[in-house]
């Protein structure tokens, strides 16, 4: 397997924003159909701006690092800007991911979108969130 970048290892060893938010404005839990891992993301929203984000992840080093990074990236962003964060942007902010681990960053994007979707639903606003396409979910042989 390819090695992780030092940035990935930094976020894995000392992840930011681990935990839960009591009475969060949006919670998203997504599972990875490829490897079976699970990510849960909590957001707090004030005035259309994400003021806090926390996560819990059952997954590999890349899954934990992308969780840490995506929560860093969304904090202080407006909902609309947060919706534009892609898995590629998360991976890039981490100095790249090994090819077989790109799907872990998809998990981060999906968790964020799912939390935003939940936010809209809780507010009773029709949700503009489109879940990302199944990119990176390559099924290889043994």
């Amino acid at each position, binding site marked *: *397997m390819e090695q992780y970048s030092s940035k990935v*290892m930094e976020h*894995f*060893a000392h*992840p930011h924003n*681990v*935990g*839960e938010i009591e009475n969060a404005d949006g919670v998203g*839990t997504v599972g990875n159909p*490829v*490897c*079976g*891992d*699970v*990510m*849960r993301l909590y957001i707090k929203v004030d005035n259309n701006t994400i003021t806090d984000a926390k*996560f*819990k*992840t*059952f*997954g*590999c*080093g890349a*899954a*934990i690092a992308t969780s840490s990074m995506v929560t860093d990236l969304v904090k202080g962003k407006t909902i609309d800007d947060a919706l534009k964060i892609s898995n590629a942007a998360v991976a890039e902010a981490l100095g790249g991911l090994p090819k*077989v681990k790109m*799907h872990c960053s998809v998990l981060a994007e999906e968790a964020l979108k799912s939390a935003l979707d939940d936010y809209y639903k809780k507010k009773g606003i029709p949700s503009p969130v489109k879940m990302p396409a199944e990119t990176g979910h390559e099924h*290889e*042989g*043994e």
Partner: protein
Amino acid sequence: MRKVYLDHAATTPAHPKVVEAMMPFFTAKFGNPSNLHDVGREAKNAVEEARSKTAALIGSKPEEIFFTSSGTESNNFAIKGLAQANSQKGKHIIVSQVEHFSVLHPVKTLEKAGFAVTAVPPSREGLVDPAHISKAITKETVLVSVMHANNEIGTIQPIAEIGKITREKGILFHTDAVASVGWIPVDVQALGVDALSLSGHQFYGPKGAAALYVRKGVRIKPQIEGGVQEDGRRGGTENVPAIVGLGKAAEIAAADMGNRAASLTPLRDRLLAGLKQRVPDMFLNGHPERRLPHNVNVSFLYVEGESMLLFLNMEGIYVSSGSACTSRSLKSSHVLSCIGTDAAAANGTLLMTLGTGTSAEDVDYVLEKLPPIVERLRSMSPLYEDVVKSRKKT
């Protein structure tokens, strides 16, 4: 920082005496065993001495040992070579589902070439029931292959009992003993096998030298052709230094055999008992007693294996994982899934294999470092959060 290597099932370091024995064969004694002159003969003699030592370790005759490059090659050679050379008897092969891919994939290839295959499922402990093998046998069955001990979960199979059945029916029987040779006594007569694979780097020999035992009189089709080496069964100039190293490793293992299981078993049990005491929600994979003396395979619920592996690595502890995330294919171990370990638990699996250099202090160091890692990862696991919440409710 202490360094604790607990991945001996992946590979072992070569024993210093093995390296010492090998060195002259790179330089002063560089000859090609196929040459008749003195330089060639010196190399030839060394290869034959290694053959005798390897044979002695498993109770075979020297001429029944064929050197190969790896356990994978030995398994490919055995499966394809035996099936192809004896297909006039029938075209049905029986294997267990927990075999290594170097057995399962050649079997798949044969299936595409017209062989029928029965893959017998193991029990929850990973044991293959000889009665199931017996039941699977048809008039067409030409070959049975069941591994001696499983490389992941350490379960030791009832090979001698299966050997009795195959012998009675006149069916060829191969066992992949790559995980067991050098660690527990292996005797081809007692096991009743016709072919057996072993690999040097699995027991303190060098990488690049392995062997296939083939009982005298059993026909096997060469898979590497175009050379007269190894009695025409396996072409290619011999890897003389590595073969010499394998012979030395076999000699050392034979002399040390009583010792190995006796000193490793208590350490293995100390590690397992210590983990059970310190970490809730974990279980052992494989058979509790019928297992390799150096194998601990445990699943920690609600945490993922690669994360554990990476944190352990930071503490100087080197292990393997059965997790989907650590494998290139992102599938969890086929062995764990066949024995019924569910996918999430398989993802939280660590394989720790001790070695002759592992000390009680090493085990205690792991017992000090691993539980907090599991605890930390659980504290950030959504699966654990759900469990804790549902436990509070009830």
